[in-house]
């Protein structure tokens, strides 16, 4: 096995091909600039510019004034935001919640990834699909399911399983951390699981040969090697919580736990929009995220390791004998709370007419499902539209992320750090802010508003908006995988005369294909249920699934909303699950059969 530090113990250091020296260095830098500029421009147009149009209003409040627009700089919205007790409280709440969930989600996701990847578990078929299915379930539906369960007159109370004090306790920060953790642990599991797969079995084997016991191997070898992934998981979930809107507008709102995203939503959902306040709160939110990202980089400058080389060996899978049952039950408990229980509630609501009559026999009906499946009905038309949009979004996002990751890996640690930081920062950008930014750029800014493609009000701009929200995730997943590739692989191919395109398609892509497929399916699933951008960039030719579901929920039509969501989840989940099985069968790094080791 080859263990290579970020500074490059072997192979050519990252970015070396752009610093040859003398005249060659100048022309090399020029080529580098010309080569990377279009990519940065794309990134800027997709995320940077829409964000700037919103943030700028925190210091230029009259920028988009309908009567007298002006560029006059006036920081009063920022002062107004900081002077507001409501905003200050929301900042503290967001930080408190993000920090708590960053820790709990990383622990839960890490435990889940280790259990499922490194141990032989019975009932595995009930456990391993859970992270994907939890991701498939949109936050607003998970929140709805928990509210239906835990409310004072909800399903659990109707069954006599929940007292009023227990219900009251749930609607507070404890319940929020609980639901957020169950909702976000898949993100941690994906990140930590990806790093676990990259560890291989070489170091463990060496430690075992040196007489180390399994616990010591995990504490002294695997855990330190996984530290960057654990930190990334904590930061990604922290950013995800800060940018969350699904729970912010449901359980957090009901609990009186105001967070920044809800404040932005309130400022942006009226006529006229309080854009200066929305911009100021967005600026505060982004500053919080970037501060954490920068702090993380300062803390672990030396912490990145490159572990996959041409000689990596597959990690061992432990068979713990009878102890595998408690392990399976622990994983199953996570699965039940995160997925099966909320799904049962959504399923029950799908097949019942009203909430008030609960589980009475006369309350059961098929009408909601029939309404969602009828050909030509608005619900099924929305489903077809969303499937098409999600497919294009996934292909485009994963494609851009792969090209960008490969390029950045060659461009040196600074460019990589900038884009990684920007990506993680972008995860924290609330979709509602990005969506408004898209309206301002593509419907208001001269030069953009008249472009035929993409054009505001058409599906093309909605797909571009989806790509903008998905690209940071794809970059985090693919850039992490590309970052683990030893530079020697690319160098060897380059010395053999392979062009950049050949190296990308024949060296990089096969080694990170599983991550690319992961990013692709992740994007497909998330796009199916992406809400804020869908709402703001809703095409004139009809609603996608999220806006239609939320419209039903708004009218308290939980039954039809649950039915459409269930049909959409089954359809999208079936497609994604099928692809994932094919990918796992043929693309697992290091071969299909994993070795088993008895403890």
């Amino acid at each position, binding site marked *: 096995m080859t263990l290579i530090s970020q500074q490059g113990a072997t192979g050519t250091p990252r970015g070396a091909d752009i610093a040859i020296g003398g005249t060659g260095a100048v022309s090399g830098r020029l080529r580098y600039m010309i080569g990377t500029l279009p990519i940065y421009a794309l990134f800027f147009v997709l995320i940077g510019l829409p964000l700037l149009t919103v943030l700028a209003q925190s210091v230029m409040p009259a920028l988009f004034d309908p009567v007298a627009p002006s560029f006059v700089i006036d920081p009063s919205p920022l002062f107004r935001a900081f002077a507001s007790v409501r905003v200050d409280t929301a900042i503290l709440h967001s930080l408190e919640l993000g920090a708590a969930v960053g820790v709990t989600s990383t622990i839960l996701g890490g435990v889940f990834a280790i259990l499922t990847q490194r141990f032989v578990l019975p009932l595995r078929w009930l456990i391993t699909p859970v992270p994907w299915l939890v991701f498939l379930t949109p936050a607003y539906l998970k929140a709805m399911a928990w509210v239906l369960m835990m409310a004072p007159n909800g399903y659990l109370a109707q069954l006599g399983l929940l007292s009023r004090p227990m219900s009251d306790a749930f609607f507070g920060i404890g319940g929020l951390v609980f639901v957020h953790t169950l909702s976000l642990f898949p993100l941690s599991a994906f990140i930590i699981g990806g790093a676990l797969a990259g560890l291989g079995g070489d170091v463990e084997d060496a430690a075992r040969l040196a007489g180390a016991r399994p616990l010591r191997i995990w504490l002294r070898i695997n855990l330190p090697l996984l530290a960057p992934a654990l930190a990334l998981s904590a930061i990604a979930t922290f950013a995800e919580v800060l940018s969350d809107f699904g729970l912010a507008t449901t359980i957090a709102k009901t609990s009186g736990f105001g967070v920044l995203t809800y404040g932005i939503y309130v400022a942006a959902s*009226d006529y*006229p929009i309080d854009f200066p306040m929305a911009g100021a709160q967005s600026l505060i939110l982004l500053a919080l995220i970037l501060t954490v990202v920068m702090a993380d980089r300062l803390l672990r400058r030396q912490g990145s390791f490159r572990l996959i080389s041409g000689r990596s060996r597959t990690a061992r899978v432990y068979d713990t004998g009878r102890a595998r049952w408690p392990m399976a039950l622990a994983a199953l408990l996570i699965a039940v709370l995160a997925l099966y229980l909320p799904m049962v509630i959504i399923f029950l609501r799908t097949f019942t007419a009203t*909430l008030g009559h609960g589980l009475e026999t006369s309350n059961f009906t098929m009408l909601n499902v029939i309404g969602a499946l009828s050909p030509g009905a608005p619900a099924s038309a929305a489903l077809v539209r969303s499937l098409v949009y999600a497919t294009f979004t996934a292909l485009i996002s994963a*494609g851009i992320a792969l090209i960008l990751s490969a390029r950045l890996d060659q461009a040196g640690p600074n460019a990589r750090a900038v884009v990684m930081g920007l990506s993680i920062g972008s995860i924290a950008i609330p979709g509602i802010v990005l969506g408004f930014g898209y309206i301002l750029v593509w*419907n208001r800014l001269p030069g953009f508003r008249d472009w035929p493609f993409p054009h505001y009000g058409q599906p*093309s701009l909605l797909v571009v908006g989806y790509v903008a929200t998905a690209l940071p995730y794809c970059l985090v997943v693919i850039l992490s995988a590309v970052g683990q590739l030893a530079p020697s692989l690319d160098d060897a191919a380059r010395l053999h005369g392979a062009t950049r395109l050949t190296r990308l398609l024949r060296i990089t892509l096969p080694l990170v294909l599983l991550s690319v497929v992961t990013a692709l399916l992740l994007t497909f699933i998330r796009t199916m249920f992406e809400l804020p951008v869908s709402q703001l960039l809703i095409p004139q030719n*009809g609603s996608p699934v999220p806006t239609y579901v939320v419209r039903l929920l708004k009218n308290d039509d939980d039954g039809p909303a649950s039915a459409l969501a269930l049909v959409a989840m089954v359809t999208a989940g079936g497609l994604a699950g099928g692809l994932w099985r094919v990918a796992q069968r043929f693309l697992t790094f290091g071969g299909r059969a994993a070795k088993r080791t008895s403890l």
Partner: protein
Amino acid sequence: MFNRSILVLTALLGSVALTAPVSAADLVMYDALDFASHVTEAFTKATGVTVDVVEPGSTGETLGKIAAEGDNPQFDFVWVDGSAVFERMLADGVIQPIPAEIYAATKYNALGKSLIPADHASLPTSASTTAIEVNTAKIAAADMPKSWADLAKFAGFVAAKDPNLSGPSYQFLAGLFQTNGVDAGKALLQAALTNKAISGLASGGKVTKALLTGDAKVGINQDSGIYAKMLAGEPVTVVYPTEGSVALPASLGISAKTQHMDAVKKFIDFIASPEGQAAMQDGDDTDYYLIPVIEGVAAKKGRTTDIPFVLLDGVAAAAHETEWKQWYKDSFVQ
């Protein structure tokens, strides 16, 4: 490599353009009404004029989208609950005044005529009002509230919408201040809305849900929403306060930039016709339980129209909108 990469991306984006054709409908409608989509289908069937329906979500979210579009509105007409907000959109040049001949051609009943705004900012198409929603499983018939003032008896268990998020809710607030006086109206609400967890909800659906889940016993809600749930079998009922309540029109506004005025006029003609009125009541969701404003048209079965209405002073409501909404947010929203 990057030129080729950009070419690949361009091809992908181009394929999106090919598979997602540009809207070719005759009209674009922004709305936040349950029946609007159904009515446009009936309209297209009757006239052949096609309509793209854009429904971003709640009334607030729809208005937020319009505000973000600013001086480049993409709709031909907007159809939502409320009236005061149309005055502001007219002042900002987002919409244009409704032509006088349209009002003249529409056969309004007395309520409809009373709802026509002086500045012709909007066209009232139906009405509803705000009432007290009661959970009949929690409140015995003898203990039902009778007036807004009675809500204080249920302090801590009164659900209400945030006027900052709900157009109908602002109409209620302005109407309460008009009938009771601003100070007395504020005192009344402060006595009743003592639980911030349920006094700043985002929609009528959430008010009903608060009642059904037991968080609230009574709520301040749009009466059409209460009828929809009551007639669907939920254990709620509607009580009209003795002080009277403000009529809330569903209104239509015409974009200042529309290039399709003739088609818009055809649509307005249709919704004032018997076929259009029938389509507006041909469903079971909230907005279908409307109060007709067209002469000779009856409401859905089970829906009361004999209500002590108060007509809102739209000018005063618009003038104090920012101040009163802020007061509500500071007082009752978490």
